[in-house]
């Protein structure tokens, strides 16, 4: 069953259509990474699914319901979105930031109920942020900051989380930490995770499926073994990469790569 399905989804800015017509389905309980070169429309697709940018046509179906028919608050109970490099006022504490994740459930003046508090504490716990609950965001490291944002998304208690490059600006260790956390959530809570990732090797390692986009269209969609190929690297990224089988989690891995054009020049 699909957690999210797009039907003839079209997205663009002004008169430029970036994604003309996209029909894809994201499996429930899976981790899917959207990959592609700069400007291929991967962030655009993610944002359109997360209704952060308006779509130019088509439909997005979440758990069988057309997003167009739902109230914004009700969508926020099914789907959490984490934009790239979000910025919070530094004086907020972790607890306060995570408490904003309860927004879709709040009524009136927004007092936190007992349930709200329990869920916030749970979200802080799952993301290993409990010890920092009263610390201000300004005093967190990059990795901790990303984790507290994920905790906020968790407090929304949605079955689906969309993330736009959650590992940006993080060092190697913290990149892994964030992805391990997402994997844990996927395994223990059954959360469907759809994210845009730049690092192809990490995308291959942590994803059940990869969606490779080229010029706003689906280039290939399937398991990392099916999608992460040397031909895909040539045609989507214009690089000449060397793929080896059996990386961690027995996923394909790109060992080394070179510019495609350079090679052409050598031949000439």
């Amino acid at each position, binding site marked *: 069953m699909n957690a999210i399905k797009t039907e003839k989804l079209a997205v663009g800015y002004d008169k430029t259509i970036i994604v003309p017509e996209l029909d894809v389905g994201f499996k429930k309980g899976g981790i899917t990474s959207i990959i592609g070169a700069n400007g291929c429309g991967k962030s655009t697709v993610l944002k359109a699914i997360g209704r*952060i940018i308006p779509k130019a046509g088509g439909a997005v179906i979440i758990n069988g319901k057309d997003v167009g028919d739902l109230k914004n608050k009700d969508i926020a109970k099914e789907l959490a979105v984490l934009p790239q490099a979000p910025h919070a006022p530094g004086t907020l504490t972790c607890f306060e930031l995570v408490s904003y994740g309860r927004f879709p459930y709040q009524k*009136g003046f927004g007092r936190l109920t007992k349930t709200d508090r329990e869920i916030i504490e749970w979200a802080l716990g799952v993301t290993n942020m409990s010890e920092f609950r009263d610390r201000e965001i300004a005093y967190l490291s990059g990795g901790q900051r990303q984790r507290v944002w994920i905790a906020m998304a968790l407090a929304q208690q949605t079955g689906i989380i969309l993330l736009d490059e959650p590992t940006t600006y993080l060092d190697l260790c913290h990149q892994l930490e964030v992805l391990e956390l997402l994997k844990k959530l996927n395994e223990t809570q059954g959360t469907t995770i759809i994210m845009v990732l730049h690092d192809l090797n990490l995308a291959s390692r942590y994803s059940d499926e990869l969606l490779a986009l080229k010029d706003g269209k689906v280039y290939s969609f399937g398991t990392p073994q099916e999608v992460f190929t040397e031909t895909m690297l040539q045609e989507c990224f214009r690089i000449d990469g060397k793929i080896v089988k059996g990386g961690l989690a027995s996923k394909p891995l790109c060992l080394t790569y070179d510019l495609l054009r350079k090679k052409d020049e050598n031949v000439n």
Partner: protein
Amino acid sequence: MAERKLTLAERKRGRVIKIVFLFVLLLLVFLLGCCMGPYAIDFASVIKTIFGGGTAATKLVIFGFRLPRLCLAVLVGFGMGASGVIMQNLLHNDLASPGTLGVADGSSLFVTLYVALIVGTVDIPVLLPVLALIGGLISAAIIYLLGTKRKKPLSSTKLVMTGVAMGACYSAIGTFMMYVLDETKLEFIQRWNSGELWGTKWEYISILFVWLSVFGAVAMHETKTLNAINLGYDIATGLGVNVKVSFALLAFLAVGMSSASVAFGGNFFFLGLIGPHIARRIVGTDTRYLIPASGVASAVIIIAANILVEDVEIFMNIPTGIFVSVLSVPYFLYLLIRSR
């Protein structure tokens, strides 16, 4: 750094105490304002008069002159302070305020146009508040329409730029209108523009009170949305906020509160910039605390300025608004220098 060891409950209690402290401070300057003036009254007599005693003279001075002026000052302070917080949070820009976004110039232009073209004399300025309000709302609506696109998400930079540009346009027309005004009208407009607490009739004060209470209550109800918007439009959308609708509602509230305050009190737009800054340093970013704190802080500033105007002979007859700026600018510069 010590701050981060505090637990949430302690922080919350701390903020409530700070707001209570601000209210006490406001009460003190308010009473001080009752005491001081060309006819000085000692503290004990002020208390006695307020609670029904006192001589005929103190009654006249306090109820007839000082209380209306002080009450108006408090209301204007609340209106401007709350409005500034909303605008700064909506636009994620610390320099946003009714003054910097062109809304003030819009109000001011409407008032000028009205005085110049329609009324024969300026004896009946009853319509002024309504005009300032309409002017503020129209100019804000124009800025919103020009600064947003239907098929696009909001961009705060675009809105701020549009506001600045339109503000320049409004004030240019306003300045031009000054040339066609006769002397009496010109003086009124000039004094109004520089901020003078003129609407000191109890009818005006009660209208403003009711107006600000209604708008303020709705704003307080929307603080959780405002907090979410403060995290960024994308995040707010993800949390289920209908950003464009909420933005329009909150902007309407902000413009409504500032224009009404300005209409009765005169041009005090600088308060909308400085009040929120001071309050943010005291209670932090949560708008549930920030809006009341900013209102009280702004009220304290305006009363302090008013005391100086009333009581210090060389400052007499200088509009209070000018004093607010004089008092606030050094502090504002200090904040800017420290923030680097």
